[in-house]
């Protein structure tokens, strides 16, 4: 199939998915949806954390140790400095050093 048609399909389907809930709840937001709007964000962020770490295999070298160390640093620095820029940078640099030089 022609590439530009496939790109259009991916674009349109993605747009439809993102717009659907807004179209369905256009007039008035049901209380249940407002409730989900409050409680889903922390749950989904938790899910995305796990999603990012899904390819770790604990039984195979390096056992997910670089991810564990780097993610712990992000948590620690974030809790300490409350600045996501610093915590993300610290964690990423530590991870890069670990996978390139240590493991």
């Amino acid at each position: 199939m022609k590439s530009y048609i496939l790109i259009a399909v991916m674009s349109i389907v993605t747009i439809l998915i993102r717009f659907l809930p807004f179209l369905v709840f256009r007039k008035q937001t049901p209380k249940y949806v407002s409730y989900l709007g409050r409680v889903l964000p922390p749950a989904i962020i938790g899910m995305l954390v796990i999603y990012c770490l899904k390819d770790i295999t604990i039984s195979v070298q390096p056992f997910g140790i670089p991810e564990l160390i780097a993610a712990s640093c992000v948590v620690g620095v974030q809790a300490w400095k409350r600045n996501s820029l610093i915590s993300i940078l610290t964690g990423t640099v530590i991870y890069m050093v670990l996978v390139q030089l240590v493991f």
Partner: protein
Amino acid sequence: MNIQTIKQAFYKSIPVLAGYVVLGIGFGILMRNAGYGVLWAASMSVFIYAGSMQYVGVGLLAGGASVLTTAITTIMVNARHLFYSISMVDTYKNAGKYKPYMIFALTDETYSLLCDGNVPAGVEPKLYRVLVSLFNHCYWIIGSIIGNLVGAVLSFSTAGIEFSMTALFVASFTEQWITTKDHVPAITGLISTLLCLVVFGRENFLIPAMLLITLVLTFLRRRKEDTV
């Protein structure tokens, strides 16, 4: 236009800058290796603007997939966005003329920056949210272009730099944990996802995890209302 709003929106978007430029470069390189030039890479980043889908999309384009396969794959990969939109229905309610673009640009990362519904003091909320969305979109497009044009000549090793996205989510999670009293939703998210990862395997656990999270949180709401 107010300068304070622009400044605050830019500041908020900086954590995504590194991640998007890097992941965008990765996407640009993949496109180049599959035989697609800069216009192809850039237009996918402009019109699709969904990171993991674009990575999958390179394979679909290169393999000459059918329209139906492409549509179904897109639904599978992007279904999680339904839940982002559901949880932003109220926050984006009065966004006016910016609303269509903000919905279009609601990626995982933009969602993680805006989902708490808070904006800094002294900014114009609608403009602030649309600018955060727009800045992120620009980083992604710029990354794809750089990767496609000069990716092959990058001399230093960037192995491991993809961890910046993981770090972004870990940082948002930590920040939300610190700022909210009720940790039940966060714990529900972690446990439900881990459970689904074990049961469904790493290829197919995302949608079941979302459904389980929604189900558990719905059940908890019922119970809470019963006891109150």
